[in-house]
């Protein structure tokens, strides 16, 4: 072989040298084997870590629809004008080159000037001082980039006819942290701007329109409280890869349906891998997990009835009215409308208008579910039911002198003095009658029936915004409870507090023969693409929470009395009547007291159901600071029932799925 025949000769030194050489090469061989074969995988992953970035691609958010498939919330494409920083590399370098040459020329001039002053050439050390530090070069780079970006922005400003500014700090930050992603300089272009852009700028230059999905609410402020709002954020949701280099932001629901059903609306984000070079510029990209779109949520809300209610409130009480309306289907528990006024804009804004925090208006509260109110006289039917169950004779007459004494306390009755039976007491809303009935029935019976209605408990709506109201518990009424307190409860004041939706459930129970239902807000959750083959999830309707267990005869008595309230011209609910529809209702005016028990306000109500023959709908209207249930709330209920009647009389439209559009 090569050298071995020589080594057979007696040359120990060469032999040793040859051995050392061989040993050295073997060490290299072993090292290479270790690095390239054994540890190859580890180094490959190092390479990938530094050269690959993962980008989270958000999924398309599901729509929110009403029961007939009309859109309440959906996504629209939004075009942003963006700079693609990697494509601008050449411009950046060119600009930097120019700046650098300028700076160098200036430096040369500086040196020449100094030398002239000193009359000699500068020493090495002095030259070094004038040389560019890395910090200065870095600044030149920044300047170059900013210059190029500003030029482009100015160009766009001119062409699009719109003043645009570039935030230097934000731009630098984007360059340093999100180089591979497009940098937006103008968001949400309208059609004219898009047309202008396409006309003049197609073909590179490092700029393009980037497509983003924006959440829009076509019905404006309708059902805003119910829908909730979404916020743009970049956090991953459970079930997604959580290690991303960049998370493109997408929407995450806050309160309301957007919040409560965020998991279903959200879909699942996908992943894209981007190959970057050592400076972070994008070289190529590759999608390895497609995003999965979210599901549509179909609500039980009927947009027509919802609109009618909102318009009615605005027409009768103005846009600043503090009011709530709940319309329920008494047989299935479906919530057909839920209105809270004042309305808010469901589109989330970083700078909300000042009025959102107005301490009196408090527009952000969903008054239908999130606020406790004293029921006032609309609680009387429940008292009446308790009394009837306890053996009250509805025809027995109670003498009402215009007031009643409970112990030492004098309580005025707004109903005219006279003899009242059950029916008349409901029609005129007599305090005396019901206080007497309540005392006779006993607070225990009242509370037991009230518990069947599940006052003082949440109705279980999936929108994360509900208060419990207040019902004195059995232990409460057994300790330090006086007749005066019972009297208060009998007229719907004192320690009882309810929310409009609880009242709607209660009146539905009265209407449908004694079944307390769980209100249903969401009908079903279905896939966005009907062709995807996925099955929709239906939420069962008509879920029973409780049975009142009262005599049907007593309910009938109540129905008749409440019918008279709206049909009898003397009834407080007369303004609510709609020709062609027999409505049963009850007005209420509750006092609002401050800490010193002085009356500072009134909350007015109208709670009702219709039609009398075969109840189907329950409508509860509440207005804060109103005049009286009859004059303030009943007209609103009237408008709502008109709409309901109209719908009943028009032929049934087939269900339209949103996708068919």
């Amino acid at each position, binding site marked *: 072989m*090569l*050298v071995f025949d*020589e*080594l057979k*000769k007696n*040359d120990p*030194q*060469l032999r*040793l*040298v*040859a051995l050392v*050489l061989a040993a*050295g*090469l073997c*060490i*290299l*061989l072993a*090292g*290479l*084997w*270790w*690095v*390239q*074969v054994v*540890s*190859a995988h*580890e*180094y*490959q992953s*190092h*390479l990938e870590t*530094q*050269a690959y970035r993962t980008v989270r691609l958000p999924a398309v958010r599901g729509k929110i629809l009403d029961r007939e498939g009309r859109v309440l919330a959906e996504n629209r494409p939004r075009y942003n004008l963006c700079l693609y920083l990697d494509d601008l590399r050449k411009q950046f370098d060119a600009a930097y080159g120019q700046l650098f040459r300028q700076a160098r020329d200036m430096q040369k001039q500086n040196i020449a000037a100094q030398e002239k002053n000193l009359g000699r050439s500068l020493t*090495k050390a002095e030259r070094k001082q004038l040389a560019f530090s890395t910090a200065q070069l870095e600044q030149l780079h920044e300047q170059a980039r900013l210059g190029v970006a500003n030029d482009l922005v100015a160009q766009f400003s001119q062409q699009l006819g719109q003043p645009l500014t570039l935030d230097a700090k934000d731009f630098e930050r984007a360059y340093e942290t999100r180089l591979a992603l497009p940098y937006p300089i103008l968001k949400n272009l309208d059609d004219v701007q898009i047309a202008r852009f396409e006309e003049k700028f197609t073909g590179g230059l490092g700029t393009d329109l980037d497509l983003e999905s924006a959440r829009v609410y076509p019905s404006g402020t309708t059902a805003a409280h119910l829908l909730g709002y979404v916020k743009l954020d970049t956090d991953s949701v459970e079930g997604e890869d959580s290690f991303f280099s960049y998370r493109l932001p997408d929407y995450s629901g806050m309160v309301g349906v957007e919040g409560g059903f965020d998991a279903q609306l959200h879909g699942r984000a996908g992943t894209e891998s981007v*190959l*970057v*070079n*050592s*400076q972070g510029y994008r*070289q190529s990209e590759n999608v390895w997990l497609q995003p999965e779109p979210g599901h549509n949520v179909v609500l039980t809300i009927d947009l027509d009835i919802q609109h009618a209610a909102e318009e009615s409130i605005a027409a009768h009480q103005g846009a600043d009215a503090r009011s709530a309306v709940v319309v329920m289907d008494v047989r299935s528990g479906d919530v057909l409308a839920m209105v809270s006024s004042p309305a808010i804009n469901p589109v989330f804004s970083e700078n909300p208008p000042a009025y959102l925090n107005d301490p009196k208006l408090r527009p952000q509260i969903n008054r239908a579910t999130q606020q406790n109110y004293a029921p006032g006289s609309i609680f009387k039917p429940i008292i009446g039911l308790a009394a009837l169950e306890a053996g009250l004779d509805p025809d027995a007459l109670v003498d009402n002198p215009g007031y009643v004494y409970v112990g030492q306390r004098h309580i005025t009755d707004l109903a005219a003095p006279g003899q009242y039976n059950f029916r008349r007491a409901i029609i005129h809303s007599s305090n005396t009658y019901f206080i007497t009935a309540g005392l006779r029935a006993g607070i225990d019976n009242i509370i037991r029936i009230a518990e069947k209605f599940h006052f003082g408990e949440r109705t279980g709506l999936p929108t994360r915004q509900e208060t419990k109201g207040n019902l004195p518990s059995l232990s409460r009424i057994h300790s330090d409870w006086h007749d005066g307190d019972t009297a208060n409860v009998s007229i719907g004041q004192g320690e009882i507090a309810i929310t409009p939706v609880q009242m709607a459930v209660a009146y539905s129970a009265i209407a449908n023969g004694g079944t307390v239902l769980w209100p249903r807000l969401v009908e079903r959750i279905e896939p966005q693409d009907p062709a995807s083959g996925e099955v929709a999830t239906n939420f069962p309707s008509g879920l029973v929470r409780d049975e009142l267990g009262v005599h049907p005869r007593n309910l009938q008595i109540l129905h008749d009395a409440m019918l008279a309230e709206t049909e009898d011209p003397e009834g407080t609910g007369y303004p609510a009547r709609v020709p062609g529809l027999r409505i049963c209702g009850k007005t209420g005016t509750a006092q609002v007291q401050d800490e010193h028990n002085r009356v500072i306000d009134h909350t007015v109500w109208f709670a009702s159901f219709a039609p009398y023959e075969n109840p189907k709908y329950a409508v509860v209207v509440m207005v804060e600071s109103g005049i009286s249930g009859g004059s303030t709330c009943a007209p609103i209920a009237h408008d709502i029932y008109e709409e309901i009647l109209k719908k009943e009389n028009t032929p049934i439209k087939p269900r339209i799925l949103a996708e068919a559009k």
Partner: protein
Amino acid sequence: MVNPSINEREPKLERLQLAALCGLMFIGAAFVFSATMANASSAILPWYDQIWVRQIIWYALGLGASAALCLVDYHTLARWSFVAYWATIFFLVVVLVPHIGTVHGGARRWIDFRVFQFQPSEFAKLAFILAAANFLSRPVDELKQRGIFWKGIGLMMLPFILIMKEPDLGSALVLLPTGVVMMFVAGTPKKYLLKLGAGVGILGALFLADILFAPPALQIKIQEYQRQRLLVYFGADFASANATLEQKAEARRLQVDRSYQGKQALISVGSGGLWGQGWCKGDQTALGFLPPGAAHNDFIFSVIAEEEGFVGSILVLTLYAVVLFTGLRIAGQARDRLGKLVAVGVVTLLFSHVFINIGMNIRIVPVTGIPLPLLSYGGSSVLCSLIALGLMQNVHIHRRGY
């Protein structure tokens, strides 16, 4: 009368070595191309500015120079060895003078002749080999004298110190094994060498301990970047123990910066795997992770390793092995001690370069600025490697002919 035809001469040139050389030159051109043409901006340079073209030109010039040298018997060359030696010493001194030597990367190693950068240290290595071979080819008994021994050491230390001052630790270091091996093969008594080895070993260990562990006051003054390279290799903390939190953070950042090159080279080599990514398809250079300035010279091996994988690295190692072992054969077949020493010197020089450079790429040796002979881009390096190999061929041509 029968005249047996004596084969007066066997084939003149050592063909196997030449073949290996051609293989290495081809690989060199190909991978310098890959390392430098990876980014778009170099594609628009005119052809005479492109680096791989220049490399081929250097190859041609080098081959020409070595061919010219082979025409002259190496004994004649040896007679001029001391002239060459002192000339290179002169240039080594000159390059240290501030206005004449150019600074690049913190070291003053080159003299700028406009058309090319002349690096005296490369030529000094060759001159040293010739001079040392000449010096050591005296009768073996003379070598037993202490005086001669120390003169030999002095011969080695003079260029060593001058090169260290540039500073160029790598080039200076390769002189040491070359000199020692030449002395060993020449027949210097073992005990001198062993004592020398022990002394150097102890000094080296003390030196390292001082650099790594001693508090700043006691540290020997070497260049900051050299010290940092040693610290990076041993994975030691840059900041001293009692540094403030800010200083430590700063030191850590510096450490990441300094270990960047070595780390990237290692990733390049490792991610090549068994078969590599393919010629011109290496990600590390294309994406700029391997610093473009270093990819085509000191770290050319990592480019080859990434693109051709383990198979490619083995090929390169084999070609070098062929060159080195044929060199040893030439040494064995040399006509006299001068020839043997010259051949051994060249082999050791080349081996030291190869070992340190490839070792640096796979992190068994700290980062030093040593080129890989024939594969790295660099005029002086290519020229000197080819001239050195020409010297070996020279020894071969004029060897005993049986």
